[in-house]
């Protein structure tokens, strides 16, 4: 890849007008809206309206770009954010309601389905790992990197 910079300069920098760029921009805006408002009550009908699509067309285009329907994507974002909160030490209930779920049962079931373990087990595992990290941080760093940083000298 070392010659890539030169190759780029040699090429005429014509921005390719790929197919229907405006549709991509609307789909991306809808995705970013979900990323930024996942904790709110999101009405996916409204997202479709704001993207100037019919609901059916919007869902089809969104899925073709991201592999998930907007609703599936919203759920996955919420669960991912809940994972972060649990890692930070929040309780299962705090994580559940902070990311926009209204029901602990729904949250726990979905979390287990996506992550592969219950939120409480996930939280306990990370709490234990955090404890081990604080006691022996170097145990989590491969020697080649610790050596290069000089961390093994201590």
């Amino acid at each position: 890849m070392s010659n890539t910079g030169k190759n780029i300069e040699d090429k005429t920098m014509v921005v390719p007008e790929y197919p229907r760029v405006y549709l991509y921009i609307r789909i991306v805006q809808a995705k970013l809206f979900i990323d930024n408002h996942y904790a709110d009550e999101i009405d996916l009908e409204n997202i479709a309206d704001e993207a100037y699509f019919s609901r059916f067309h919007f869902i089809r285009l969104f899925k073709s770009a991201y592999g998930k329907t907007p609703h599936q994507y919203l759920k996955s974002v919420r669960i991912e954010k809940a994972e972060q909160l649990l890692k930070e030490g929040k309780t299962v209930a705090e994580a559940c309601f902070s990311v926009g779920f209204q029901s602990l049962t729904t949250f726990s079931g979905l979390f287990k389905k996506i992550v592969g373990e219950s939120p409480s087990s996930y939280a306990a595992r990370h709490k234990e790992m955090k404890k081990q990290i604080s006691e022996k941080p170097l145990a989590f760093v491969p020697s080649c990197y610790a050596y290069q940083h000089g961390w093994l000298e201590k």
Partner: protein
Amino acid sequence: MITKMTITNIHVLDQDSAYDFYVNKLGFKLVDDIPMGPDTRWLTVSPPEQPDLQLVLFPVKVSKMFPQETADMLITLIKQGVFGCGVLTCKDIFATYEELKTKGVEFMKPPTKEFYGTEALFKDDSGNYFSLQSIDNFSHENDI
């Protein structure tokens, strides 16, 4: 018998800025963020759908193994954009391109059809560059 690469590194100029770039802009998942002294962290991230590969966001810092002259040289080369760090794959290159542009990622080449697929080039916050390729290439032309 070696079977896989599981950890590799990207030299970065600033770990806070690199965290923001890789996690908040590219959407990588944080794996480890372990303090290893006053201003250094063991910071690793994974591509969203590749949890068994960790990228170490490795700061260029002076240490006994990494003298000032070497660090200065490396910083200069990174800033000059000498290092290509690899190829990142996405489902839809046009959607990914638009999203990253919206987030302020600097592209050196927009999605362009090449003989090996559709490719764009962008730089990280330090100056390392990546190729972005789509697994579906132009297959969505008929969808969108």
